[in-house]
């Protein structure tokens, strides 16, 4: 990646931050609003976006599947379901138990999708997406069932499930940011293994990589990062899907630059999406998850079309 392309990415990130700090009815006039409301929210959007972008790049590499991301594989739904159960069980959002449970939900759902897709024989791109859809749909239904049958606190939980950054708890933001940074650093240190995996398990093995071990490791990194993002902002889709495809145009496919760039790109994208959600129909807010779905679903359709065309 040339210097100019790195600058382009950083400029996009800076622009997204400025947009987010300025977005709202009060504009730039009220310093208090900027510092106490918009700044924490911008930081939250940066962390969530980085976590999801990172997870997307890791999944797409380790599964050799350009259609994968934490939303489509069911990772986010697993984390969300675990988070909702924790809220209802009265577990503190900053306690280690909460983060462990959310991680377990994410990892369990991801592995279930992967295992289901493998049952179909050779792991194909399409089978993985289908398995992910089935797992997410089931988990989402479970969450909705729980929310509608319990009368308590369900309004704020509905917003959490929808995916948004209304309320930022500093403690959660801090722990999640640390988890995402650690997962990102661990993944970046193994960029060579991720590149080998993106050629498929057989090629990776013969290049000197243990595919089973790397699959587990990268699932752990991606699930940790996704679950930390979900702990802050609930289910937000398509960041992990879109960002790696976009930044690959700048960095090329090698994980060495792609992984850090996907984290930065994800941070920029979600920050911009959240700010856009606040500016579209003031004074009401469009949740960042809805903004991302509006942009991401057509992108996914385009990707499916491109992918199927490439095979014929």
């Amino acid at each position, binding site marked *: 990646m040339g210097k100019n392309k790195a600058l382009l990415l950083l400029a996009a990130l800076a622009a997204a931050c400025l947009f987010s700090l300025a977005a709202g009815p009060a504009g730039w006039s009220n310093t208090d609003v900027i510092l106490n409301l918009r700044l924490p929210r911008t930081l939250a959007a940066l962390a969530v976006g980085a976590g999801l972008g990172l997870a997307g790049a890791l999944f797409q590499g380790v599964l*050799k*599947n*350009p259609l994968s991301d934490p939303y489509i594989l069911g990772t986010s739904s697993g984390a969300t379901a675990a988070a909702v159960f924790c809220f209802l069980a009265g577990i503190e959002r900053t306690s280690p138990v909460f983060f462990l449970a959310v991680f377990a939900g994410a990892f369990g759902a991801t592995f279930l999708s992967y295992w289901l897709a493998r049952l179909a024989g050779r792991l194909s*791109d399409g089978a993985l997406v289908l398995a992910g859809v089935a797992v997410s749909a089931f988990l989402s239904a479970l969450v909705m069932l729980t929310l509608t049958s319990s009368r308590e606190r369900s309004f704020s939980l509905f917003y959490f499930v929808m995916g948004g950054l209304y309320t930022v708890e500093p403690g959660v933001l801090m722990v999640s940011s640390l988890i995402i940074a650690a997962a990102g650093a661990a993944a*970046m*240190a*193994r*960029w*060579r*293994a991720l*590149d*080998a995996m*993106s*050629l*498929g398990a*057989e*090629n990776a*093995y*013969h*290049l*000197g*990589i*243990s595919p089973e071990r790397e699959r587990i490791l990268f699932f752990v990194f991606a699930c940790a990062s996704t679950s930390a993002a979900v702990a802050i902002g609930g289910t937000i889709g398509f960041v992990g899907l879109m960002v790696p495809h976009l930044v*690959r145009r700048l960095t*090329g*496919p*090698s994980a*060495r630059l792609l992984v850090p760039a996907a984290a930065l790109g994800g941070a920029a994208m979600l920050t911009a999406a959240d700010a856009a959600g606040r500016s579209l129909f003031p004074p009401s807010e469009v949740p960042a998850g809805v903004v991302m779905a509006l942009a991401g679903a057509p992108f996914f359709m385009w990707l499916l079309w491109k*992918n199927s065309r*490439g095979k014929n």
Partner: protein
Amino acid sequence: MPSLKVSGLTFSYGPEPLIKDLSLELRPGDFMCVLGPNGSGKSTLLRLLTGFMKSSSGSVRLAGEEVSSIKPEKLARLAAYVASETATPYDFSVREMVLLGRTARAGFWHGYSAEDAAAAGLAIEETGIKALADRSINTLSTGERQLVFIAQALAQEARLLLLDEPTSHLDLKYKSGLMALLARLAGRGLAVAAVLHEPALAGLGCDKALLFSGGGEYSFGPAAQTLAPARLAAAYGVPENSPLLPK
């Protein structure tokens, strides 16, 4: 010391053994072709030889060590394997692809060294793909892409090179060029084993042959005897005077 020593290797997917009590030895400088009808175990054998698949009984020793107990990282420095087809959705350049052959030698997180670049450059030179070095592998023809993966295997600097149907999608010119390259590598002291689809290709430099004839039956030996027309005809189930068999 032989590069590769297989003894009593047996493997089956179902109740019937696909590979039965197979023994062979490959030494530096040997160029072995593996022939036989479809589904007779040729590709499976190569995967057993690298430990990517595990056999039910028997032993495969690579440089004196049982292959199943060698760590992948060390294995990749001893043996290189080229699959019949490898595809990736991502647009790696040819040079990046060949450099990936250095994975087991380049250490973990830092970039490639000058030594890695030199080994990759040599492999690119050797396979004659220098003009393609900056292209995305997804823009290449099947034949060109096959050469890229052979270059990747060469960059591993392993002493044993295994290839699964390296010629299957290639036209005549590529086929003969590829066989010449493999013969040249064997001449330089590598042990080479290649699964081939057409017996005639074995005439382009193979000195040893392994011929499967289905049901786990096989013969192994010098290419000239093992691939005598009568044996080939019996293995493939075609008449001895078939124009498809080499004269």
